[in-house]
């Protein structure tokens, strides 16, 4: 891989994370437990879509093969997607959605904070802009983890179950491969292993306040950096990509 290929891959990871999670949140539209959350989840989903557009546009330019954001979003198959497995997991109930959101928000907050100091000015700019949105996302999901964890017996039990079910998807956030190493060496990317302590501290504080138990690190699933995904991504893409693939020149 050339440096350029690596930067392209790195940008895809960032863009795909935002896009797939945004697509998942869009599924709540019209289905959230209350109107206030319907708006909150779709707002957050739209923030993520906006982030994805910036990352993927940049990725397309870096690649230099004439692919724009839409081309990258709508005409790649599962093996070419680089989003974390965590983010393609089904919404489940509201607790499951909030668990997925909380752990990712608290990671993404730290990642964007570091990425805003990237030597790549364009990337730093996107991260600085996105950090403001993610600061709010983290506040929103943190609030819910605490309210549901330290709520009724039923909400506590559902929240704990949701955290246990998703726990093994979290270690992948802190993985580093050759692309990450090269990006860190160039001062472009973030050393995610260095975020671990701050992430642990924040998550532990919130879980304690929510009276939830941090699960044991007994299992983990990974593969996104090599394009190995869970079965769920294919269904997401089928829905998301149907229209542009069926009507490639459609305008709306």
């Amino acid at each position, binding site marked *: 891989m050339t440096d350029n290929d690596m930067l392209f891959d790195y940008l895809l990871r960032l863009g795909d994370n935002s896009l797939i999670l945004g697509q998942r949140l869009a599924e709540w539209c019209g289905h959230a437990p*209350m*109107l*206030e959350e319907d*708006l*909150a989840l779709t707002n957050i989903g739209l923030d993520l879509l906006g982030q994805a557009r910036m990352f993927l546009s940049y990725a397309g330019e870096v690649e230099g093969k004439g692919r724009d954001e839409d081309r990258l979003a709508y005409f790649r198959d599962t093996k070419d997607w680089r989003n974390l497995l965590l983010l393609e997991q089904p919404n489940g109930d509201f607790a499951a959605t909030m668990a997925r959101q909380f752990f990712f928000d608290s990671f993404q907050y730290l990642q964007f904070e570091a990425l805003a100091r990237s030597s790549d000015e364009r990337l730093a700019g996107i991260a600085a802009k996105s950090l403001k949105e993610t600061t709010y996302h983290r506040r929103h999901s943190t609030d819910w983890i605490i*309210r549901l964890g330290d709520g009724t017996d039923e909400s506590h039990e559902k929240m704990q179950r949701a955290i246990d079910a998703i726990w093994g998807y979290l270690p992948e956030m802190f993985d580093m491969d050759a692309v990450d190493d090269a990006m860190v060496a160039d001062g472009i990317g973030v050393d995610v292993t260095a975020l671990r302590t701050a992430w642990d501290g924040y998550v532990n504080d919130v879980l304690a306040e929510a009276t939830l138990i941090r699960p044991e690190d007994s299992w983990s699933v990974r593969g996104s950096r090599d394009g190995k995904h869970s079965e769920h991504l294919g269904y997401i893409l089928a829905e998301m990509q149907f229209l542009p693939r069926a009507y490639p020149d459609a305008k709306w």
Partner: protein
Amino acid sequence: MSKETTNELPLYEVFIRSKNGLDHKHVGSLHAADAEMALTAARDVYTRRSEGVSIWVVKSTDIVASSPEDRGSFYEPSDDKLYRHPTFFDLPDEVGHM
């Protein structure tokens, strides 16, 4: 009735200040678990198009409102007290519109 309302999250009234220097104005209400969550929900429901720079939320039950029956004793006595309006002063032309 009572059973249903206890299962719902409490209602909050939302007030938004659209610009520095202006007053907070009532914009609507929403349901939330507590005041902090009401604030974030208000941000999502009422400020999506840059409507505000500051939000207040108040529990609806904490608002004490006058009732329509009070209209006679509350407001009508002032109807015939024109001298409470500052309309008996001559304004110099230079003041312009006040």
